[in-house]
C-alpha cells in the first residue's frame, strides 16, 4: 500500500514547514529557542486535534450511516466547547481571585460531558427516524443551541476580566496558545480513544448494513452505538481542549481518504488519524501565511475548505438517491 508512505512524507513536509514558517525571526539566537518551542507545541496541538476530529468523523459517519456526518456538523464540537466553557467558568468562579490558572484537567472533562450529551440526543433521535436530512437538521439545531448557550456563558464570564478573556479565547478555538500542560492531558485521552475506536471498527462495519442486519450478524448494536459515542466524545473533548474547536475536519478527511483506504473501519481509522493530523497542521500553516493584521483563526481555513465540500457531497448523494 502506498498510502502510508505518502501520508508520512506529507507529515514530514508539513511538520518542517510548521516549524519554519511564521512571523518570528529564527535567526535571532536569543529568541530562536522560544519560537521553536512555541511552534512545536502548536504543531503537536494541531496534529492531535486533527487526528482526533478526523477519526471522530469516520466513527460518527459509520454510527449514523451517513457520509455527511461529522462532529462539527452534528453539534458535537459545539457541545464540547460549551461544556469546556462551563468547566472554565465553574473553576474560575469557585477559585479565589488573583491569578487565573487555566484548569487543564477540568476543561477536558467539561468538554467530554458536553460532547456526550449532544451525541446522546442524536442517538435517542435515531429511534424516531433514520432520515438523513432530519438527522443533519437536528445536529444543526443542537449546534445552534450550544452556540447560544456559549454566548450566555461568555456574557456571564465577562463580569471578571481575566475569566472573560479565558472563556472568549477558548471559545474562538486556536492552537496558537496551547501549552505543554494542555497537551500532556489531551495526548493520553486522544491516544486511548483512537485505539478504542479502532477496536470497535469491526462492529462499525456491520452497522453499515443497518441495525437489523448488524444484529443478525452477531453485533450488539446497543453496545456498539453507546461505546462509539463515548469514545468519539473523548476524541472531541481532547481536540477541543487543545484548541481544535474547528469545523469540517471530520467531514473532509474521511471523504478524501475513502478512495484510497476503502470503507472498512479498521483500515480507515489509522489512515484518518494520520491524514487528519497532517490536514490540520497544513491548515494552520495556511492560517499563518495569509497576510492579515492579526492571525486568521484556524476554523476559518477549515470552514472555507469544508463547507463547499459538504454542499457538493449533499448534491451528489441526492442525485444518486443513495441515502435520502
Amino acid at each position, binding site marked *: 500500500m502506498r498510502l502510508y508512505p505518502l501520508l508520512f512524507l506529507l507529515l514530514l513536509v508539513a511538520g518542517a514547514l510548521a516549524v519554519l514558517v511564521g512571523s518570528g525571526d529564527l535567526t535571532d539566537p536569543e529568541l530562536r529557542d522560544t519560537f521553536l518551542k512555541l511552534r512545536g507545541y502548536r504543531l503537536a496541538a494541531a496534529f492531535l486535534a486533527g487526528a482526533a476530529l478526523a477519526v471522530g468523523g469516520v466513527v460518527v459517519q459509520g454510527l449514523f450511516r451517513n457520509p455527511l456526518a461529522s462532529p462539527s456538523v452534528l453539534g458535537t464540537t459545539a457541545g464540547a466547547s460549551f461544556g469546556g466553557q462551563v468547566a472554565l467558568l465553574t473553576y474560575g468562579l469557585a477559585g479565589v481571585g488573583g491569578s487565573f490558572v487555566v484548569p487543564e484537567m477540568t476543561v477536558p472533562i467539561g468538554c467530554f460531558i458536553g460532547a456526550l450529551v449532544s451525541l446522546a440526543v442524536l442517538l435517542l433521535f435515531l429511534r424516531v427516524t433514520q432520515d438523513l436530512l432530519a438527522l443533519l437538521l437536528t445536529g444543526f439545531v443542537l449546534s445552534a443551541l450550544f452556540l447560544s448557550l456559549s454566548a450566555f456563558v461568555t456574557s456571564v464570564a465577562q463580569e471578571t476580566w481575566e475569566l472573560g478573556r479565558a472563556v472568549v479565547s477558548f471559545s474562538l478555538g486556536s492552537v496558537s496558545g496551547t501549552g505543554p500542560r494542555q497537551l500532556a492531558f489531551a495526548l493520553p485521552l486522544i491516544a486511548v480513544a483512537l485505539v478504542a475506536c479502532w477496536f470497535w471498527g469491526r462492529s462499525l462495519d456491520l452497522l*453499515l448494513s443497518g441495525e*437489523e*442486519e448488524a444484529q443478525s450478524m452477531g453485533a450488539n448494536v446497543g453496545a456498539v452505538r453507546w461505546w462509539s459515542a463515548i469514545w468519539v466524545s473523548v476524541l472531541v473533548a481532547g481536540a477541543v481542549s487543545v484548541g481544535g474547536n474547528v469545523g469540517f475536519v471530520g467531514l473532509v478527511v474521511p471523504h478524501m481518504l475513502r478512495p484510497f483506504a476503502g470503507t472498512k473501519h479498521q483500515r480507515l481509522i489509522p489512515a484518518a488519524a494520520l491524514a487528519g493530523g497532517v490536514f490540520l497542521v497544513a491548515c494552520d500553516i495556511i492560517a499563518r501565511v495569509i497576510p492579515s493584521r492579526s492571525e486568521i483563526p484556524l476554523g476559518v481555513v477549515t470552514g472555507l475548505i469544508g463547507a463547499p465540500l459538504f454542499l457538493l457531497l449533499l448534491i451528489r448523494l441526492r442525485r444518486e438517491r443513495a441515502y435520502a
Partner: protein
Amino acid sequence: MRNGDGHLGLRAQGVSVTLGGRSVLRDVSLEANPGEVLALLGPNGAGKSTLLKALAGLLPYEGRVEIAGADVASLSSRARAKRVSYVPQRSLLRSALSVEEVVALGRYVHGGSFGGMSKNDRDAINHALQTAHADVLRDRIFTQLSVGEQQRVLLARALASDAPILLLDEPTAALDVGEGMAVLRLIRTLAARKHTLIVVLHDLADALSTTDRALLLQEGRVVEQGSTGDVVSPKPIRAVYGVKLIENARIGFAPGTDADTGTGTGTGTGTGTGTE
C-alpha cells in the same frame, strides 16, 4: 455445510409478537429439521416476515424458540449468530464495500476485535462465494450489482458465518425467472448439505417445487401446517387467499443447465393459482 458437524434444528413454541400495541403474531409453533426446507406462506400482512425475524432474535417475542433444546433468548447475540443466520430481502448497505468485504462481514462472530483474517476465515469466505455462485463477483462493488446478484452475495454472507440454520426472507422476490431459479436451486443444495432452512415465499409454485414442508399463516395465526403438497391444496388456499387452485394452469421452469446434486427444482407438475 462446510463442516460436517453441528446439524441443528429449530423449534418454536407459542410464539407471539406484539408491535406497537398491535398483535402481529399469535401462538405460532413450528419445527424445522436439518436437511429440510420449511416454507412460510400467507398473504401480505399475515406475519411471515415478522415470524422470521422473531426466530432470528431480531424482535422481542413471547413464547420459546429453541435450537438443539437451548432457549435462543438465553444466548448472547454472538452465540445466536453462530447458529442462526438471517438473510433479508434487500440489504440496507449503501457504502462502497466489495463483494468479498460484504461476505467477510459474515465472519464477524468468529473473529476477535483485531482485523486480521485467519486461514479458516478465508476458506469459509471462498467456500461461501463458490456455493452461492458469487465468486466471479468477488471484486465488484456490492451496491452496483443487480438485485439477483445481491441476493446471492447476501446468501454467501450468511453461509460464511457457518451457521447451520438459515432464515431467508422472500429470497426470490424482485428477481427474474433465471435469477429466481438459481436461488431456489441453491436452497435445495444447502438442504442437501444438511442445513436447516426456513424460507418466506410469495410464489406457491416456488414453494411446491423447492420446499418440503409449509406453514400457512393468516392474520398472525397458523391456518395449516404440514407437507407443502398438503398445505398448498385447494381448501386452505381458497380459505386464505380467496383463490381457486387449478391444475396445469402454469408452465413450470426447470434449470437449463446441469442440475446440482440434491435439487428438487422444476415445477413440471404445473400447479398454479387462478382467481375465481
